[in-house]
């Protein structure tokens, strides 16, 4: 009996989700202690909203990190900012149709940037960190060039509605993201041939190549996928914010990396999940909300946020050793 209990304990400790789940629960309790309104429906649903958008960014980041070869996408924030600016510019006769076209357009835009990233990394052999950082600056430059630095974006009601309206206690957008998350995790990452190849390529590119897997294209597609998802996340962000600014999503790049790592994905590639990234996103948003609830000055807030992040990442990178 105690043996079985022990085994469950060990299994729980080994589970890569555990730190994020435990962290979220502790943060929720802490938030409730700090302020009574913390667990109100309103606050919870706005936490879920922000988590949803960061979750999308983390799904994008996770795909690239899993693809290995020191893969990292530092252009996610820039892609999101870009589609947040350009997405709402599409105006058709019906608002619903405009939103549908917007969705397709931002996916294509993001995917194109991802394709350039992937080609740069795989064919031009630029280190992913450098390639995607440069790409981020190119994308930002492009946005400023087109809008002349003065974005004039009016977000239409249909897009605003998606993030405002409630289905039960959850807003529509959060519900969509949760469904999308589970679908992508199960049918794209775990079940599809592509997802399985992605894990193998990320784990051992050499061995995957010898098996006849075309690892170059597998990795390039990971960047395209990341770009497309980030594009979609940008549209969600502008729908939630109601107005677009230059570089409005720049903080999402680092946050997405942090969320993915907190969720138990290895930075060395070949291992990881989208759901873990979502849990990591929840932890990060909870920390941000609590700091806000404490009425902290903006500068001090981001400073403390940074320190907490370093602490989490440190614990996380040592966790495998601690568990043994």
């Amino acid at each position, binding site marked *: 009996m105690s043996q079985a209990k022990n085994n469950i304990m060990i299994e729980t400790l080994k589970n890569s989700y555990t730190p994020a789940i435990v962290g979220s629960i502790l943060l929720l309790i802490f938030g409730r202690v700090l302020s009574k309104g913390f667990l109100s429906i309103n606050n919870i649903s706005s936490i879920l909203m922000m988590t949803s958008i960061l979750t999308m960014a983390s799904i994008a980041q996770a795909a690239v990190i899993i693809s290995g070869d020191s893969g990292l996408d530092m252009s996610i924030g820039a892609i999101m900012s870009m589609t947040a600016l350009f997405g709402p510019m599409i105006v058709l006769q019906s608002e619903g149709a405009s939103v549908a076209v917007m969705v397709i357009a931002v996916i294509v835009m993001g995917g194109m940037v991802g394709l350039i990233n992937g080609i740069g990394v795989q064919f031009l052999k630029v280190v992913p960190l450098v390639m995607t950082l440069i790409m981020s600056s190119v994308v930002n430059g492009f946005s400023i060039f087109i809008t002349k630095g003065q974005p004039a974006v009016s977000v239409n009601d249909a897009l605003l509605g998606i993030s405002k309206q409630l289905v039960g206690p959850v807003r529509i957008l959060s519900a969509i993201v949760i469904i999308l998350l589970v679908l992508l995790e199960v049918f794209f990452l775990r079940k599809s*041939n592509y997802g*399985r*190849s992605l*894990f*193998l390529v990320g*784990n*051992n590119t*050499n*061995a*995957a*190549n*010898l*098996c*006849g*897997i*075309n690892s170059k294209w597998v990795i390039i597609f990971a960047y395209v996928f990341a770009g497309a998802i980030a594009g979609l996340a940008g549209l969600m962000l502008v729908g939630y914010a109601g107005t677009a600014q230059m570089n409005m999503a720049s903080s999402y790049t680092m946050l997405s990396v942090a969320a993915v790592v907190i969720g138990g994905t*290895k930075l060395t590639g*070949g*291992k990881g999940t989208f759901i873990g990234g979502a849990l990591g996103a929840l932890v990060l948003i909870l920390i941000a909300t609590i700091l806000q609830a404490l009425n902290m000055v903006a500068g001090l807030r981001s400073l403390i946020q940074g320190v907490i992040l370093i602490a989490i990442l440190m614990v996380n990178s040592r966790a495998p050793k601690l568990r043994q």
Partner: protein
Amino acid sequence: MSLEIKNVSKHYGAVIAIKEANMVVNSGEVRAILGGNGSGKSTLAKVISGLVGSNSGEISFDGVPLDFSSPKDAKKHQVIMTSQELSLFKNLTVEENICICNLPTKNMMTNRKQMKERAKDILKRMQLESLMGKLVSELAPNQQYMVELAKAIVQEPRILIIDEITSALYREDVEIVDEIVSELKQKGCIILFISHRMAELYAMCDSVTIMRNGETVGTYPIMDKTEDEYLSLMIGSKIESYHGEGKHQEKSKRDIFMRANHIPIPSYHTYEMLEIGKGEIIGIAGLQGHGQTDLLQALYGGFGKINIELDGKKVTVKNAKEAVSHGFAYISGDRERDGTFSERNLTENLSAVQELVKHKKIPNAKKVLDELHVKYDNQNELITSLSGGNQQKIVVGRWLTASPRIIFADDPTKGIDVNARTDLHKEFAKIANNGNAVVMISSDDDELVSITSMVKTSKVIVMYEGHISAILEGNDINRENIFAAAMPINAIPEEKGAREDDKR
């Protein structure tokens, strides 16, 4: 003055590399060290030069025990080793490389003038002045080896270990080495010479120590014995666990399955041809690094497009994916680098080829694992939780499920236990007996003799410096013949032009 090595042993984990090695070398003596693959000669060189520590035993020089904690420590005592794996910085110039161990300085900055003079001096002695100022990456392989030697000599060694350095050299280079060696000899330097080119050894060395399975078998004045006698000393008596010698089927007629007339061997800039028969097992033997791996990689599309004839039809193989579509399989002995997916479970490791590349289902993964006698807990455990032998069985199983027509295996049983080896041999024989083919490299000659006796058609090809030096069939397949072909007499290429001709 003499170098004494007493009862030195070295093991890596359970693998014994040197077992109680003994030898005495006097000052001014050039000693050859001879032995086959894995006989421990390179390990001995590394122990003497302080690159690895020994587990027991004593090394003394001039009666003073030598116990180096690092190669730097060894260098202080002027024990220098030049190695097969070059120690040069390719992005630096020749003179920088030569002086790198002791850069002349002036006011804490490199004294370039003095450095150049010092390098020029030694390069002049080696008739290599033309190399001054060039980057090492611009040099041909043989020139790089000469620079490696120059770098060693500039440190004024009292003990110089030359490990396989001459294998990449041409005749005129070897003559220079010969001169340098006799110069050092007159100064009283002790030289340990590891090489497989017998002709060179006879020309340059005074005495020879034979190593076999990590032991020093004996030391003789070099002229005392003939080459054949040395070979038989290196081979020794048979290991009991293998059988097969004399049991091979006599040369039988084979149906040609695959033919490749122009297989590039990039390491040596040579080309070779190979014919594979239906149901055949081909063993590839030779000392390590003589182009065996290149041969297999090339056929698998590893060096770009290659034209072959398969079942009488002309086909090209551009990359691994195309190779797989023709029914080829590639099993590497370097599991961690080329085989396993360490973060993934058994099923994922097993299904990589059949499901992800060939897009077919594996109906019963458990049956495959059981047939290969894999010992495992459940299919969802990480592959790294299995022993090395079982991991390799999964890698082999990955290909067996895809029913390959030709298996290319590069030392597939390296570092796995005897039972797993036997299991893999049986699987390979089964594949060949079903009308397919297996081409297998092994650094263990006994293994090749044994596995080629398990099927009706078989041959062993022996490679030497990028060429096939012998093709053995039937009862010619034995350890003596393999060994003799792996170290042929007078096999030094005449001049630089000789290799250029091969390219055409």
